[in-house]
């Protein structure tokens, strides 16, 4: 790399780009289901279909031990819904910079706008999916206290930050290396099974349990299950008895901060590289 003096561009007037974040998110959501008869309903159908298959296979056919825990259907569905958000928002974010290449090459705006609008569009889907959970909970006669709901919302914030932090890296890296499409696909497969979505953690041998529960994805899903569905769910605090159990809570914050810095550094070159 030839050395160059750091370029300096100063704009004294700052624009507000929140309306761009919102418009892009709305457009994205609108276009996703355009031309389909059931429209938004499809975003509800997907987790339900996955739930149906998994429930049938693991709870009726295979009968994995522990699947007889109370409220297992809601327990399973909540895991799927949270996982779906994580998988879809990171996957879409990875491609979002390249997909919006036309915009990037022609207009200046903070590039983070694209990632934020992408994450909000995924959040809309998550909120719709959580409505099904509410229905399932009502049927199963589960009524969490306001404090538990508040704690659950805190976990959603954590999940949002985790996904955003990873999106910062994936979005920027994918511009240069298209390999990440395959790498992330495989990584998501591994994480899906490591996150104890379909099986209860009670069947996991103790030495693996510690490792699995240190993943923030596992921690978020288990904490959520414990808070609003089943107190029997095993959480990180149950499995790890050392200060290490704070690690999964810190990872999303660290990823978001470091990811943001990395993304901003890479963003100045997007217009040329994309």
């Amino acid at each position, binding site marked *: 790399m030839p050395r160059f003096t750091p370029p300096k561009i100063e704009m*004294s007037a700052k624009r507000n780009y929140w309306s761009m974040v919102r418009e892009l998110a709305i457009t994205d959501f609108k276009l996703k289901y*355009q031309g389909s008869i059931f429209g938004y309903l499809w975003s509800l159908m997907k987790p339900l279909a996955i739930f149906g298959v998994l429930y049938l296979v693991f709870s009726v056919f295979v009968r994995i031990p522990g699947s007889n825990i109370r409220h297992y259907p809601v327990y399973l569905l909540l895991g799927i819904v949270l996982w779906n958000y994580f998988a879809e928002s990171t996957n879409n974010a990875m491609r979002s910079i390249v997909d919006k290449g036309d915009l990037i090459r022609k*207009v200046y705006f903070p590039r983070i706008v694209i990632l934020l609008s992408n994450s909000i569009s995924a959040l809309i889907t998550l909120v719709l999916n959580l409505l099904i959970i509410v229905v399932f909970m009502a049927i199963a006669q589960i009524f969490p206290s306001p404090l538990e709901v508040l704690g659950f919302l805190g976990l959603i914030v954590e999940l949002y930050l985790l996904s955003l932090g990873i999106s910062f890296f994936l979005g920027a890296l994918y511009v240069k290396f298209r390999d990440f499409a395959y790498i992330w696909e495989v990584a998501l497969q591994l994480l899906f099974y490591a996150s104890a979505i379909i099986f209860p953690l009670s069947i996991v041998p103790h030495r693996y349990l510690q490792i699995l529960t240190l993943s923030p994805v596992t921690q978020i899903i288990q904490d959520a299950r414990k808070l609003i569905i089943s107190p029997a769910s095993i959480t990180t605090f149950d499995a790890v008895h050392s200060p290490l159990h704070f690690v999964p809570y810190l990872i999303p914050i660290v990823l978001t901060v470091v990811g943001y810095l990395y993304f901003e550094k890479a963003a100045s070159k997007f217009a040329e590289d994309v």
Partner: protein
Amino acid sequence: MSEKIAISVKDVSKAFRLPHERYTSLKQNAMHLFAKRSYSDFRAVETVSFDVKQGEFFGIVGRNGCGKSTLLKMLAGIYVPSKGSIHVHGSLSPFIELGVGFNPELTARENVFLNGAILGLHRKEIESRFDEIIGFAELEEFVDQKLKNFSSGMQVRLAFSIAIQAQSEILLVDEVLAVGDSSFQKKCFDVFRRLKKEGRTIVFVTHDMANVQEFCDRVLVMNNGKQLAITGPDQASDLYQRLNAENELKEMDQLDERNRWGTNEVAIGSVEFLDGKHQPSRVLKTGQPMTVRIQLEPTTAKLPLLVGLAFYQADGTHVAGPNSDGQAITTQSQTIEFTLDRLPFVEDTYYATVALFNKSGDITYDYIDKGFSFVVSGTKRSFGNMAVFGEWRSNK
């Protein structure tokens, strides 16, 4: 116009690295990790410096690929300069391309909000000016139609209408005026006149010298990424025409000299064109003096000569063919000049044929057919195939 600076550009350069092979996967990168990367740096813009004052209409002109669009993208913040600094004082909105982010699947109404947001407008701002936007674009009847059903002219009108709503102090405009039908173009120009009157700063990239002369206060002329001059609009359009002319001549000079024949008893050495200041030049001006200077190869023969010239326009039209019949020119003359006091040729590229004959014209000593070329630039638009210099009189 105030003396305050709106944009200050200092020693700005932009180089693009063009790898000879582009690696977009990790494997390719890993495999070539230790191999020497071959790439070439393309210097799109080289050490350009200028200031744009507040309220100024600042033009940037240059031939295609001269770096003016790259420069504009740096001003807009899309590209980061490789070297140098850019300071922008005030809010800035780019008209670099119209209708960026337009989605054909959305209606005109939805696209107005989307495109407005991309330009940094608030939803409320767009709501309050929505009727004005649609009105200016003359699309009242089509507000809820999908954009994919619009003609390209309609889309451009809509895009322009949104873009002018960005109430920025500084506007960057890249050749957007070359779009739309003539009545819409007129509306666009009216907008630019109004913006200029309101004291907005406008940076304007264009090819059209008529626009430059009408609007610009000062003009940056660029060539091959370098800054050639910053001058007034008249000098700039002169310079630009000269650049264009030189390039056209370069192309024409590739014509070979197969079209030369004659007995060669006396030969043409060189042919030059002189401008009004009697300086050799290949860019001449309508209405100014022009001289064709022919040098002969030295010879011992002493014969009377008839010199013939022929001028052709680029499309091959034979416009004039003067000869030296009746003049006492011999093969002993070293330099022969043919002078026109006021060049009657209109703006075009011209070929010249130069020929030497014997006195009666039946023996050809040397004949170079369309072997020389020059460019005529007019100061004003001229009509017809020839410029005439008459005088108008009227009784009051």
